[in-house]
């Protein structure tokens, strides 16, 4: 049993994506905020990493800067504004809700609503013609009353078929 557990543990992909440096924080809350901020802010140099992951010198500088600002009791918004003022909206992994990012935030929901609307319209249109066809059939049935002679011929034919 133990052996299986060890084997299973070996199969778990353990990877730490983090640049390692040591910062001292005055309390647990600012440590958590530091982690959140470095997770949400993007490294300007190595573009698909956040500040927490990146080992590039600029990311290290920015981490130090965030640490300094946390030490000065600046709010998250102040720190984020500081970064945006220098590196642009690009550094935000979580874009702000402004006029230019409106499409980004709400576009998918609009598309979803549009898709739902299309589905509703299509299914409605499909249902309608079927009803019409059914109506038409019943009308025809009423109209098509056979004349006496035709009815006799039909009966004769059916009988013939039945005999065979």
């Amino acid at each position: 049993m133990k052996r299986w557990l060890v084997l299973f543990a070996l199969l778990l992909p353990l990877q730490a994506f983090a640049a390692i440096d040591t910062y001292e924080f005055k309390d647990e809350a600012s440590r958590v905020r530091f982690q959140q901020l470095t997770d949400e802010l993007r490294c300007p140099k190595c573009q698909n990493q956040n500040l927490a992951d990146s080992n590039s010198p600029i990311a290290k500088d920015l981490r130090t800067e965030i640490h300094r600002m946390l030490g000065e009791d600046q709010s998250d918004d102040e720190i984020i504004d500081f970064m945006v003022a220098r590196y642009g909206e690009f550094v935000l992994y979580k874009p702000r809700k402004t006029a230019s990012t409106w499409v980004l935030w709400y576009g998918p929901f609009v598309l979803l609503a549009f898709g739902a609307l299309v589905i509703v319209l299509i299914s409605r249109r499909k249902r309608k013609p079927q009803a019409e066809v059914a109506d038409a059939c019943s009308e025809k049935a009423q109209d098509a009353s056979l004349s006496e002679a035709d009815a006799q011929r039909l009966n004769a034919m059916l009988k013939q078929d039945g005999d065979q």
Partner: protein
Amino acid sequence: MRRYIVFIPLVLFFALGVLLWRGLQLDPTELPSALIDKPMPSFQLSSLQDPQRMLTEADLKFDEPVLLNVWATWCPSCKAEHAQLNRMATQEGVKIIGVNYKDERNKANVWLEKYLNPYVINIYDDKGSLGLDLGVYGAPETYILDAKGVIRYKHVGVVDERVWQQLKGVMASLQSEAAS
């Protein structure tokens, strides 16, 4: 009219295709600078050649558009563009302000003696504080400041002849804008 509705998905597909195709042509490493049309950030740093001389943003006003070049001796691309900067300074009389970014004073001065000095002044930014305020993320970076010391353009990467023609165009338009 109803007949054309079936073409809507096709039209949407092509519109999306064109949009994404254009996206492929963009260079994702080129970030729009957040400092365009903002004045030069304030700083107080020593001159590279003369540690006693303090420089501030007021020293960067030349009444004409100038270039501001962020460089360092540890940056190989800076070496690559250095000859081009020298040529621009000596042959075309372009004023180039140097920001020596996170470097060592001695090394930087030796480099300027060895490879010649295209800069009118050089700001010694050893901590990278001015670099941070400028939003520098990779040397070399070259900015265009207008006559009032406002940042008007930013180029990240090596300045070669092709880039210089581009920068020259921007500077010329700033010059005529200031004249009018």
